């Protein structure tokens, strides 16, 4: 019971303190808010890019070109062998005549040239889908080893390039966020230091009358935690509202259904939790530092 009363008292003291030094508190709160807004943007971006690349990879087929001299028998055998592969999902045969027709339709202006060709220089092909996009590479390699296969590949390069660009952005964001977190922790520590200073008479009396060190420190540690938590409220609200607005505005898709956005309820719970956790943690680290450094007891 005593412990609970000490806890309640500390929380009340910490709360009073946040508002008593409001001009200082607001600086810490603003700084943590800005930091967390950046964190939120990074998180929303990265989960959308992940989602997008996963979707795209799901759509990717391996295009397997067969050698010109492969006959119907060998073709069937190759199909059978592909079907036995662990990650095999589905396949579709696309003959060189199909390719030719497709080209005639898409390459307007060249259709006459293509029609005039008496032999078809293209290859018969098999389009293969895999169950798991992470198996794309291995499966592609395995298929190209098969006898009678001219080549096998998938749209790897474009996806990889996108991922590389995104990794760079992600790293830059991380550096900025870490720097901001350090600045925030320092600001919070400074705020707590001033609280400690302004309450030095009370601290002296508490020490004199035998208040335990824990009970003396607790209000200051709570104060940092509160600054962090209050600072995370605004970013959480901003994240929720703006993401929902963006999502609704685009109907959940960017670039006419090319990119599907992550659904708000999937993303926002997790983002909010992370923001609150970071806010609280930074606040606690800041106040812990101040208590260690400036509260000599």
């Amino acid at each position, binding site marked *: 019971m005593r412990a609970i009363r000490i806890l309640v*008292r500390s929380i009340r003291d910490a709360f009073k303190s946040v508002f008593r030094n409001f001009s200082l508190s607001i600086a810490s709160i603003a700084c943590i808010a800005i930091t967390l807004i950046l964190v939120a943007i990074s998180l929303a971006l990265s989960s959308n890019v992940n989602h997008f690349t996963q979707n795209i990879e799901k759509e990717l087929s391996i295009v397997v070109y067969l050698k010109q001299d492969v006959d119907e028998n060998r073709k069937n055998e190759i199909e059978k062998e592909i079907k036995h592969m662990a990650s095999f999902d589905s396949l579709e045969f696309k003959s060189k005549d199909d390719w030719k027709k497709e080209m005639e339709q898409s390459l307007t202006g060249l259709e006459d040239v293509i029609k005039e060709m008496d032999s078809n220089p293209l290859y018969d092909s098999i389009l293969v889908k895999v169950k798991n996009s992470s198996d794309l590479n291995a499966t592609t390699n395995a298929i190209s080893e098969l006898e009678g296969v001219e080549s096998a590949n998938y749209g790897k390069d474009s996806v990889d390039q996108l991922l590389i660009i995104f990794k760079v952005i992600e790293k830059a964001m991380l550096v900025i966020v870490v720097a901001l977190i350090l600045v925030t922790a320092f600001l919070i520590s400074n705020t707590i230091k001033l609280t400690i200073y302004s309450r030095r008479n009370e601290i002296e*009396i508490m020490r004199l009358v*035998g208040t335990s060190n824990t009970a003396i420190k607790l209000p200051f540690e709570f104060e940092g935690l509160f600054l962090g938590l209050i600072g995370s409220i605004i970013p959480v609200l901003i994240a929720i509202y703006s993401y929902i607005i963006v999502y609704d505005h685009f109907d959940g898709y960017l670039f006419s259904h090319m990119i599907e956005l992550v659904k708000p309820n999937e993303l926002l719970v997790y983002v909010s939790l992370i923001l609150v956790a970071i806010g609280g943690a930074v606040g606690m680290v800041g106040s812990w530092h101040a208590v260690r450094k400036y509260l000599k007891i």
Partner: protein
Amino acid sequence: MKFIDIKKCSKVYKNGVTGIADLDLEIDRGEFVFIIGTTASGKSTLIKLLYREEKPTKGMVIVGGINVAKLRNSKVYKLRRKLGVVFQDFKLLPKLTVYENVAYGLNTLGLKGSEIKPKVMEALEHVGLKDKTRSFPNQLSGGEQQRVCIARAIVNNPKLLICDEPTGNLDPDTSKEIMDVIEKINKELKTTVVMATHDKDIVNRMKKRVITIENGIKVSDKMKGSYKVHESN
């Protein structure tokens, strides 16, 4: 074992100044002891050793069974709960009322409001301030403020009351009042009192045990003593 037991105790400050040198001192439970000496003789240093504001450089200090010399910083509060301290400057919290100032310590110890109230009222009764509970320190005279401090010091029924020149800021009449309060506490509550002072009148009038310190060294220890610092030279 004596209530306060100091053996071969020295305190040398970081800057090399000796506060107390090779002191032996025993004080029984319930005693009333004056510590006297000229300025900078080491009175406050001795007082600070008792409530572990300073650690002895050498020797042993035992207060109420606690080995103060070996007490870790994080455990000092255990000692402080067994004693009360009164200073020349009152150290009251200006934004709190008399009642809140006295209750402050008990609050931070996590006591219930209903446990705190009778203790605070009893302490205020002992110092004769029961009717000023709602006043703020700046609405009180110096003597009244010091009485609030005494109430704060005794509110948790300590075995030991330590005073460092409690009358240093007060006129003779008020000083006498304060001394009456402290003497009453010593008699009625059997609280051991150790008081540093250089108020000749008080010491001579009260005929208590007097310990004289010069340059950090104990030069005399007399029962029913009087203020004779200069005669002892």
